[in-house]
């Protein structure tokens, strides 16, 4: 070390400060030779470029809507404030909330730090939420569903289906939207086309369910009662969720929905998952 009192921890701390701030001064005492200190920027630029690239992959519709340059500026500011908090860029921008540390998701960041932009493009958080839910559904465990054969076997051994601890599969993601924008999002996400005309969206609270089926992500718009049922099922049981849905729609038909969910491989048996 340049100074015999400097420890390896001092070096890591100095370099860490540089990576956060771009200020090279703390690292200078550790450099040797005649190479310009400006070359340190290779490391910081590489980190920021990789992190922005991850945000671009995880929220692919945003650069199409905002333009790559503007998106890059927003993403760089997010990286500066919320560096990746896991040693992988898979899922970067989705936020982390562990016992030890929490980071803002990119959606929260836009809402909290860029209210002016969200005011100008009020559908941005919804678009982000759809991007995030789609990718999370794709990368989730898609093998935990209760099959028709398993249900038949349970019935055959005298199980009361209503009493079973049923839940939505791990890959399921519910997205509550303010605008009717599934069509716009699908166009952006899968044809990567910029809308040809000005975007006119209708304010309309609606909920989309994403889940993985045979390795592909499925999307289903939910009616109001179905949405209440699915949301309730996340923290209660089947009976309570059905009661909540019936309060919204007195014609809510649980048996029909149950058959739909089973056919779509959307149900799992919670106890089986926990004990496995």
């Amino acid at each position, binding site marked *: *070390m*340049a100074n015999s009192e400097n*420890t*390896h*921890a001092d*070096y*890591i*701390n100095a*370099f*860490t400060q540089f*990576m*956060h701030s771009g200020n090279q001064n703390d690292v200078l*005492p*550790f*450099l*040797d*030779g005649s*190479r*310009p*200190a400006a*070359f*340190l920027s*290779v*490391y*910081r630029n*590489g*980190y920021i470029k*990789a*992190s922005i690239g*991850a945000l671009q992959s995880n929220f692919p519709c945003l650069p199409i809507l905002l333009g790559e340059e503007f998106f890059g500026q927003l993403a760089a500011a997010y990286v500066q404030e919320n*560096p*990746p*908090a*896991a*040693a*992988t*860029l*898979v*899922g970067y921008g989705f936020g982390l909330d*562990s*016992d*030890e*540390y929490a980071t803002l998701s990119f959606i929260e960041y836009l809402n909290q730090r860029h209210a002016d932009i969200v005011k100008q493009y009020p559908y941005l958080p919804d678009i982000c939420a759809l991007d995030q839910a789609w990718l999370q559904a*794709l*990368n*989730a*465990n*898609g*093998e935990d569903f209760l099959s028709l054969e398993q249900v038949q076997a349970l019935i055959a051994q005298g199980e009361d289906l209503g009493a079973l601890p049923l839940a939505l599969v*791990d*890959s399921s993601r519910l997205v509550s939207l303010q605008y009717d924008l599934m069509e716009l999002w699908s166009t952006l996400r899968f044809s990567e086309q910029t809308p040809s005309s000005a975007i006119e969206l209708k304010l309309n609270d609606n909920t989309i369910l994403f889940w*993985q089926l045979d*390795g*592909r992500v499925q999307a289903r718009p939910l009616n109001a009662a179905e949405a209440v049922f699915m949301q309730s099922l996340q923290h209660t049981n089947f009976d309570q969720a059905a009661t909540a849905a019936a309060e919204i729609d007195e014609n809510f038909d649980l048996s029909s929905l149950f058959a739909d969910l089973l056919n779509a491989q959307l149900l799992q048996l919670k106890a089986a998952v926990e004990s496995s």
Partner: protein
Amino acid sequence: MTNQIPPFDSGQQRLFGAGVNLKPQHYDEALSLADTQAQTSIDSDVWFEVHTENYFVDGGPRLRYLQAISERFPLSFHGVGGSLGSYTDKPSALTTRHLAQVTALVKRFNPVLVSEHATWSVSQHAYFAELLPLPRTEQALACLCEGIDRYQEAIGRSILIENPTNYLDFVSDMDEADFLMEALKRTGAGLLLDVNNLYLSQQNTGLDPIAYLNALASEKVGEIHIAGFDVDQNYPDELLIDSHAAPVDEAVWSLLETTIKILGAKPVLLERDDNIPQFSELMNERNRAQSLLLNSTKINKRQAVING
């Protein structure tokens, strides 16, 4: 060195020939290679390497493809987030979580090789998504060895560590080859020699690649990487960047030949992480490396006959 982990020995290696690092856009073509692979020498011994952290998912097509690939080809895991050189006595939740995820993948897929870097990337709660340099000091060496030990203990086997690309010099007590060989001696790990990194370190900082290669113990070298680089736009005469975004440069091919002459034939992996071309283009580059390995083996066999 951890007593329970057998040290790396290239003589026990199950991997031969040249491989390619696998990208999602090439999954199907890679799998079809298993069906169509001609039984000629140039096409034999294909293997694939993936970045371990790209498979930190709970399920879905990415893991399904990896499973299918692993059933047909030798598979190697190359970690980029282990941050071996910033190990602390009290690892953060980030580090602990990372190692648990690596361990689960290694247990599930049992890759033929597991490798990481002699660098760092995690500090406090931040992952800097870049291979950051270590000064070659006694303290940094001890820290790196702790990181390697911790990694090897977690996954229950020895790993390879990769030499870095140097863009500047840091105040150091020893040269890089000695630093790495000492780390291998203390931990039982092997070396992943990145010939592109070696070439860039030569061009950027004046490192002598021949002296470097001669200082390595051949039996500790388990894999070689080759890749393309970029010329920095702001400092075109002074700075080459390890980008993995271009075909392998002729100078790197030449250094690969020299490396094989000095260290013997080792599994060679073609890396490409940006500006990804058609799979066939990567395979053509990979086949060039395979030819070098086959020629080297032929020459060695011929020499052995002459030597009696």
